[in-house]
């Protein structure tokens, strides 16, 4: 099976190994979506016109290594910043801090906060008649949080068609507490929903075409993802959730990501 963005995955592993902190499988699960958004969807004006940007909220903050490497790719974060990840005095830690990192919209980490904040931004933009889009990436485990469903209900009631949510459906949460029929659940909350392969640009493209903007509803793209996607022994292996590879494992990871 082909793996996109091996270079970004390699950077994720490098910074996490260097600092001995981070969630590699979660970052691997979402990195393709984040890269896709910054490459194809998110408008990023110059800093002096920054309020014209599209907004991206990484609600599942523990996947932030993926966001950092993408922000670095698009020159929002410097190499120096990226390489300082997790160090004392660094802007970058195991969860993102919006007061430190230009380009990060919310200091997420505690789950269930990013989406309702994105709802507030989307509402504010509509009141001000701004056409900017608001993208938000949440996890399926995050859907255990009640505040996600509060936000889902609010967004549809407020007709926030400028809000597009991505759900990282890697089914790791399923192992803890079943949360099934996510598509139906989101539709029941008034969202337009569709399912994509979150590791495939083609599938995400198709989904955007199929799941067009409505006049009155927020949209969600439920992404069938694989936690740890890209490295065989990390994929869908719960042991790796917050594990740091040793030297031997690092060699294998590097080999798999350079094939």
């Amino acid at each position, binding site marked *: 099976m082909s793996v996109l963005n091996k270079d970004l995955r390699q950077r994720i592993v490098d910074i996490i190994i260097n600092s001995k902190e981070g969630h590699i499988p979660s970052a691997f699960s979402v990195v393709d979506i984040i890269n896709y958004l910054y490459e194809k969807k998110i408008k990023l004006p110059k800093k002096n016109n920054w*309020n014209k940007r599209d*907004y991206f909220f990484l609600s599942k903050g523990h996947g932030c290594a993926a966001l950092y490497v993408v922000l670095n790719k698009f020159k929002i974060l410097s190499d120096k910043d990226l390489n300082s990840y997790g160090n004392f005095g660094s802007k970058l830690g195991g969860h993102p*801090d*919006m*007061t430190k990192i230009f380009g990060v*919209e*919310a*200091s997420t*980490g*505690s789950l*269930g*906060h990013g*989406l*309702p*904040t*994105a*709802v*507030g*931004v*989307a*509402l*504010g*933009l509509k*009141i*001000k008649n*701004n056409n900017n889009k608001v993208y938000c990436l949440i996890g399926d485990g995050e859907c255990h949080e*009640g*505040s996600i469903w*509060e*936000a889902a*209900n*609010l967004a549809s009631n*407020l007709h926030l068609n400028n809000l597009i949510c991505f759900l990282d459906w890697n089914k790791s949460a399923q192992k803890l507490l079943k949360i099934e029929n996510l598509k139906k659940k989101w539709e029941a909350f008034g969202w337009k929903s569709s399912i994509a392969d979150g590791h495939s640009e083609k599938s995400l493209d198709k989904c955007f075409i199929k799941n067009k903007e409505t006049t009155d509803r927020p949209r969600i793209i439920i992404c069938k993802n694989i936690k740890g996607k890209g490295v065989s022994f990390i994929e869908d292996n719960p042991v790796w959730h917050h594990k740091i590879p040793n030297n031997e494992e690092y060699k294998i990871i590097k080999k798999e990501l350079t094939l």
Partner: protein
Amino acid sequence: MIKKLRQQFADSVTDIGKKDKNLIVLVSDISHEILKPFAKACPGRYYNLGICEQAIVNMAAGLKKVGFYPVLHTIAPFLIERCYEQIKLDFGYQNLGVNLVSVGGTYDYSKLGCSHHCYSDFALMNQFSNCNIIVPGSALEFKILFKSIYKKNKINYFRLTENPHQVLIKSTDIRFGRGIKIKKGNSLTLVAVGSKLKEAIQAYNYFASKKKYIEVLYYHTLKPFDKDLLRSSVKKNKRLLVIEEFSKKGGFFSECLNATKDIKNVFYENIGIDSFVQDYGTYDQLNSRTGLDLDSLKKKIFKIIK
């Protein structure tokens, strides 16, 4: 007739909202009727978002990010205690500004029981260095103080009492961050917080009739704390009693102690809430249970100054 603080809140946001297009009001199923004029005068900036307080607090952070001055309004335990993590992360950690306007602090909803009581809000909000804590005891105080700080990029917490103190204070004396010396005296410094000024003045009058004069300091702004006013009084009187409608654990008394701990030979006493108030009844009846009533205050003062 005494104007209710909640009505003043509605009037203030309406007056300001007409001029400031960035003032936006979110409520959680409360005060709909009195906010109708705001909704009419400021179309698209009034949202009754039902009963999902946590997400509403997050939403306010989002609105702040795009340039609004959000005003959140609901009952104190649901706004502060239920949503504490949202407040901590969205506005404390992210350093965003918001106006949180509660009603039903302490046991203003006295007959509704513990679920609707809230006395830990001062201790909780006091954890944030970027927070202003305002406990106005009259409509005029709210009017002046809200207008003066709603735009500040801080967590502005306004706690509206249902039991105004009914003491006339000149508008020129009401200034953000400043306490007020209401009565001069030399037998005791009595600090009254918010609505408790009512009992403090009644106690003053009682002891004044016996030629004993207590100094009454009034605080509507608890954070930032006007320490100088307190220190000069305590240095002189060497006896301090604080009466507040907050939990004794981390209440305003703790701040007063810290502010005066270097002054030697001071006698300290406080009246606040010891633990859960699991009774129903009127506000006054619950006051007599907790010791926040006039009789208890007089007894406490008598013990100190006899």
